[in-house]
């Protein structure tokens, strides 16, 4: 069936500024709120530009299905989904190959900072629902997931925040938005731990010279810091 064809842009950088007025190393406006799902043990809402994600934590609780239980530590179950109305073309409900892969990398991006060994045999369910998508949904979901876990009071070694590096008009840029992602050359989702600056998510598609890659890594590390700040502020606001 006929599908929405995205608008085309001649140039994504004009006079050193991106189409939305940002500098190359600048994040989109980021808004974080915790405690938005009263029935969950922890929850968060994160808005990065027009990308909006809700995260909820249920647990630690009895592990289900039981045969996936681990005697030594809690199991973190992550389910990432794009809601049907989150994009221009409606998405059929239910898991896809894409959402399965992202659920896995999101789990790997988060589990190393959780003291899972404190809850042997238990399960922690983390649901990440993208309610509006304008690029960077997996990064935004990981940022939301980390703060929802913290809000649930689960002991963690640090926070995790994520963004996507990219290359537009041949230049490295932080936190691509929808049009930049559609017409840009390269996309590199990236997540980092607040404490030791270790990297827990790294994917890349497109084209990077080894030098560009090195530069992209260090740009990402710097750019991501303000997100940790927003995460902490949101947690503090909630506890005030």
């Amino acid at each position: 069936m006929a599908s929405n064809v995205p608008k085309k842009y001649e140039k994504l950088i004009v006079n050193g500024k991106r189409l939305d007025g940002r500098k190359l190393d600048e994040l989109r406006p980021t808004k974080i709120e915790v405690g938005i799902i009263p029935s969950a043990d922890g929850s968060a809402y994160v808005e990065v530009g027009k990308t909006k994600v809700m995260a909820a934590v249920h647990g630690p609780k009895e592990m289900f299905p039981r045969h996936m239980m681990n005697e030594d530590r809690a199991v973190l179950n992550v389910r990432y989904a794009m809601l049907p109305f989150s994009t221009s073309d409606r998405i059929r409900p239910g898991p896809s190959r894409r959402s399965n892969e992202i659920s896995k990398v999101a789990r790997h991006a988060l589990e190393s900072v959780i003291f899972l060994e404190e809850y042997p045999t238990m399960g922690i369910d983390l649901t990440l629902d993208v309610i509006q998508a304008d690029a960077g949904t997996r990064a935004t979901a990981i940022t939301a997931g980390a703060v929802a876990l913290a809000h649930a009071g689960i002991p963690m070694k640090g926070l995790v925040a994520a963004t996507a590096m990219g290359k537009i008009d041949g230049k490295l840029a932080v936190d691509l938005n929808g049009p930049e992602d559609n017409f840009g050359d390269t996309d590199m989702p990236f997540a980092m731990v607040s404490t030791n600056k270790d990297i827990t998510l790294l994917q890349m598609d497109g084209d990077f010279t080894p030098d560009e890659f090195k530069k992209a890594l260090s740009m990402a590390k710097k750019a991501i810091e303000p997100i940790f700040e927003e995460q902490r502020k949101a947690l503090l606001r909630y506890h005030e």
Partner: protein
Amino acid sequence: MSMLKQNRQYLREKIISSREDGRSHTEYRPITIKTGVLDKAEGSARVTIGKSDVLVGVKMDIGTPFPDSPKEGILMVNSEFSAIASPDFENGPPREDSIELSRVIDRGIRESHTIDVGKLCIEEGEKVWMVFADINILNYDGNLIDAAGIATIAALMTANIPKIEKDGTINRDDESKSALPVTEIPVPVSAGLINGIIVVDMTKNEEKCADAVMTITTKKDGNFCAMQKAGPSALSEEQILNIAELSQKESKKIRSMIEKAVKANKN
């Protein structure tokens, strides 16, 4: 998370005199209705009743009409009980509840001819607009049908039809898009029977104690367009007629709240 048997018994006895949150038997919790909450959807609304929280997005796509109605657009109401709202949804038979929820709301809208589907024909027998209303439960504290029904009609009332370009592609960004033709405002009102008492807008705890629930959807003219009895117990004729009267009365109040929220969005 689940109620103990003795709590259930206690709440059932106490309901005769008072509800857990102090409301009267026929009193709703506070209702909030926000429309236009999503950019990528053709229409959207978020509704809370007490702590129950529902988000509905309307998407439109081009599809093929049914053979027996070649000139009419198609409405599809779907609901997903995301694990975000409650982990209870993951085990047991919730799929059934989710299907019932969307089918009751679907019927309320369809049977009241809320959408003028004749205006959604693009090319007879070949192409019509398909209207998807996707219901997403964000927080579950009872009475999801009313919250979802209100959110769905509010989302439809604020939805726009995208433009079709000459080459057949859909342009969702054009400003000249026209409003979805919505001509009715069906409002579902649900009441439960707990220990012989009729109770509107039940909380999650109250629903767990209820013997039966009756949802009655009323139109602007006060006529009924859809009903659904749920729950294991029977209802007497008298109880049903009482609920019908209650529903008719409450639906008017809720309808003006919807109209106000929709108006706020259009301004």
